[in-house]
């Protein structure tokens, strides 16, 4: 199949058929993030795709080497804009692993809550943009308006709407404000009631089913082989979740199950995101119920003189898009020696496109991208 379509370009050229380029992104409404594919088209179908990456490359890993440990905290959430907390959690987690720190229980639970809230914001955006890609803008508007409520909660807790910079090595920055917990309970009820509305308008819509079915099928074998993680892996039927398999924060003390889908196509991925949204609500409720009293961080002294002992560690978290990993190398100085980031959408965005896009219609590209949750900043870095 693949070879067929890569060769087709040449055959079509030879036969005098018109092959033309379409720049799908960066300046394209179906694209979110500054990223693009250049696709060779024959009629309505794609013959070949080339990646146009690096538009968001900021040299994060290099800048981090020149910054203090604590300065980097304000930098890392900017790697993934819609889902910033996994970055902080993974970065702090790696540092704590090198230092051998065990953070206080309360901090673990608060981290879990913020991580799950961040997943919710990201999923709301992801579900909304499935609507956006098919032209169902109402869903997008409704979901983004609802997402704002979560952002308000973040602002109350951390002071920032988008970038929270809340996790620090040794715990979290501050305790929950008064009344925040009760408000969050209310918000969870709100979202649970909203799910019905989303179902009606998006997930049970026959046209959405028609559009999503059979787009970008991945099998379980392929997903494992090609490094695809997170919801995209679970949509192929593999019951795997980093939260269970390699627990961090307080996930080992919470009970939740991992939703899976079988088909591995866009519809399965979209449905899985919806199922995960439900699980997330239950996790937040549990974490709020079990939230212990106590300190929220370990005092580690002056952040300007903060040093991490020599060593290296890999910490990974399950973000809304898949496995987010930080590998940190410290030589005992006030700055990291090397920080390497494993972005979850790299295999999907930069590699899978060569497998899936040839043969696909131009109509489906935006949908394919949205359901795979390709987030350009995390591989451009």
């Amino acid at each position, binding site marked *: 199949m693949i070879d067929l379509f890569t060769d087709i370009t040449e055959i079509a050229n030879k036969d005098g058929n018109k092959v033309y380029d*379409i720049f799908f992104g960066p300046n394209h409404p179906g694209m979110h993030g500054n990223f693009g594919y250049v696709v060779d088209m024959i009629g309505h179908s794609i013959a070949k795709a080339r990646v146009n990456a690096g538009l968001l490359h900021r040299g994060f890993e290099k800048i981090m080497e020149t910054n203090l440990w604590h300065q980097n905290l304000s930098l890392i959430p900017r790697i993934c804009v819609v889902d910033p907390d996994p970055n902080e959690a993974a970065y702090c987690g790696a540092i704590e692993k090198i230092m051998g720190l065990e953070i206080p229980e309360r901090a673990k639970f608060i981290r879990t809550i913020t991580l799950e809230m961040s997943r919710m914001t990201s999923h709301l955006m992801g579900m909304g943009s499935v609507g956006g890609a098919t*032209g169902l803008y109402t869903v997008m508007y409704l979901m983004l308006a609802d997402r704002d409520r979560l952002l308000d909660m973040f602002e109350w807790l951390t002071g920032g709407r988008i970038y929270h910079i809340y996790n620090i090595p040794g715990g979290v920055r501050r305790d929950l404000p008064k009344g925040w917990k009760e408000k969050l309970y209310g918000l969870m009820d709100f979202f649970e009631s909203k799910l019905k509305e989303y179902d009606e308008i998006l997930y049970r819509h026959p046209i959405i089913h*028609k*559009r999503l079915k059979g787009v970008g099928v991945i099998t379980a074998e392929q997903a494992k082989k090609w490094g695809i993680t997170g919801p995209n892996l679970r949509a192929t039927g593999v019951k795997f979740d980093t939260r269970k398999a390699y627990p961090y924060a307080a996930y080992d003390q919470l009970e939740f199950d991992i939703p899976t889908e079988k088909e591995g196509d866009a519809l399965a991925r979209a449905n899985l995101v919806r199922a995960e949204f439900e699980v997330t609500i239950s996790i937040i409720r549990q974490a709020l119920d079990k939230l212990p009293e106590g300190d929220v961080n370990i005092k580690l002294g002056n952040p300007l003189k903060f040093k991490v002992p020599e060593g290296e560690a890999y910490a990974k978290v399950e973000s809304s898009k898949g496995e987010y990993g930080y590998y940190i190398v410290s030589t005992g100085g006030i700055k990291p020696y090397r920080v390497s980031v494993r972005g979850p959408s790299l295999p999907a965005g930069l590699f899978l496109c060569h497998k899936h896009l040839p043969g696909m*219609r131009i*109509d489906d590209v935006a949908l394919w991208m949205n359901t795979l949750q390709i987030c350009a900043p995390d591989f451009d870095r």
Partner: protein
Amino acid sequence: MVGLLFIGLGRIITARVQRRIGPPFYQQFIDVIKLLARESIWHHWIMTLGSIMALGGLIATMVHVPVAGWLPYDSGGPIFLILYLATIGYLGMAMGVSASGNPNAPLGIGRALSLMLGYEIPFAAILILFISLTGSSSLTEIAAMQAGGFLSWNIVKFPLAFIAAEITVQAMMAEKPFDQMIAPSEIASGPLVELGGKFLGLGMIQMAVAIYFETAIMVNLFFGGGANIFTFTLKQFGVYTIAILINSVMPRYKIENAVRYLWTVPLALIIIQMLIVFLR
């Protein structure tokens, strides 16, 4: 003018569905005036010709559509002439934007023309039904036939045909689920992709005219025309509101699905309606 007002009101309705306030109702006039006062980028003289042809075609169409029983000159609203003239608009647009050289534009035009293929057949079937009933192809006469109260309107007499026509008109107005030709997230707003400034202004006027005459046809066919211009416009707005509401809760079909849908569901509805009518 009225068409622009309709679009403006339609935007408010969409905004309300999306829990927003929406723009002021005269927003569309502001947009058009702004666009007409703007620099426009010009690729080829065909573009200008195409735009003018599109607008001219639609105005010529509008001249023949009776508004509340009134026509600029007495042509009687010949239905087939209207259908033919309406195509000129699209062909003009196709010609204009193909000259722009952006690959998205021909893609959009290809979709628009295949969609046209899709909706003309059920629409023609509806017309055949009415022509065989009235024995005339004049819109004025079809409208006049329904005079005499709510119950003699065609919408009450032939509800299935009305549903079919509503679906068809949805495709005619390129509202969702049949907005494949625009499809921002797929082909970057298709035909409009290279149109800026005055061309886009003309395009918007053209869209307004199209909406006006399409709703006018619907009102004449199913709502018994109108006693005066106000009730007529009110009915037109009713038709447009239905279209907008459907538009705001529907995603978009793929083009082949859309054509298949148009060739099956509305056509089947009309055939059932015909059977009911003729067997009774």
